[in-house]
């Protein structure tokens, strides 16, 4: 769970896929044309592309103090610089949204914050004592403008899921009472991870 925009992930994949498709088809067409005797429609398209490239390559730009500069390399360099910046921003903005606090209350006397370690201790401790629970962990995240808590529970194989959910909701009700406020909670009964296999032998009763 994080606040990373997933739409932008898909937009990037789509744009990259479309660009690769265009370049790949162009390379295939170049290979077929160079092999000799290409179909007429491909020969016409290749001729048009070569003519367009020749026209574009002849474009120049007069820059005062520098002189005449070919336009295509200039545009290409600008696009590459912009693309580099955009991609760097993209890389460094993934995986955000984790929060160290689950609640902030402003009052006339100051601000009270509830740390995520508090929710970790209060929600997971009663649950990991249960024999049908292998492990439990929490995480605090920003979801839009709100904060939410994920309570992920790994249950023992064959455990009664209804009983685990009821126990978790009981713990959450106590947490609500203690906090005096209600924050959104995602209760996740998750598959075992590789390290839970190690933990299970330690918790055998």
């Amino acid at each position, binding site marked *: 769970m994080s606040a990373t925009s997933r739409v932008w992930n*898909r937009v990037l994949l789509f744009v990259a896929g479309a660009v690769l498709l265009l370049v790949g088809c162009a390379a295939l067409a170049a*290979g077929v044309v160079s092999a000799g005797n290409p179909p007429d429609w491909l020969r016409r398209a290749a001729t048009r592309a070569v003519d367009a490239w020749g026209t574009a390559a002849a474009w120049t730009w007069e820059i005062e103090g520098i002189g005449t500069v070919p336009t295509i390399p200039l545009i290409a360099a600008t696009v*590459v610089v912009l693309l580099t910046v955009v991609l760097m921003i993209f890389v460094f903005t993934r995986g955000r949204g984790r929060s160290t606090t689950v609640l902030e209350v402003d009052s006339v006397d100051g601000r009270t914050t509830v740390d995520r370690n508090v929710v970790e201790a209060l929600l997971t401790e009663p649950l990991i004592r249960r024999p049908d629970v292998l492990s439990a962990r929490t995480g605090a995240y920003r979801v839009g403008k709100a904060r939410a808590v994920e309570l992920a529970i790994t*249950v023992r*194989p*064959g455990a*009664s899921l209804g009983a685990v*959910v009821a126990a978790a*909701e009981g713990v959450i009700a106590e947490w609500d009472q203690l906090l005096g406020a209600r924050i959104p909670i995602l*209760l996740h009964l998750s598959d075992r991870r590789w390290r839970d296999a190690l933990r299970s032998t330690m918790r055998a009763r």
Partner: protein
Amino acid sequence: MTNEQATYRRVLRRETHAPRTIPALVVAIVGAVLCLALLAGGVWWLVDAAFREEIARGLPGLPGLGPRALPIGIGAVLVLLAVVLLALAVLPGRRRRRARTTARTALLVDDGVIADSIAGAVARRAGVDRDRVAVTVARRTVAVRITPTSGIPVDRSAAEAVVNDILSGVGFTALPRVVVEERGVVA
């Protein structure tokens, strides 16, 4: 709709679909590295006349590859890669999870957890080893295959009732399809 319900809807929609963060990150990093290499090459081209001449002469051909094989090979690989990226961008990428909201929480349960729970409960009810019950949880159905102990009948309807009990215990529904193997094994 309250703010909490709106948050739950958003969280559950996100958690039941693949984020595509890793492939997007790989594409972005590879793209950024290629862009930086192009920029470095461009600067080199500007300052080094020998490099410019080398580029103008054309890159030396790779041994064993004719002038046609290289663009066709590169083109085929790029088209294949493009199809994979477009599929990742367009397909919904549903995760094998079930989700609903309760009066207090947003509940998310992995299908594997449900399958484990059903397998354990069916094995206890049918009186067979856990290893002899195979469960596949799909979006609308739960398929259970039981290999009985030779000579000991297994009640199919009881197994179906177990599946329904487990699912209703966490507030989900699916159609149980229980198959009891005709040939049992010796316990």
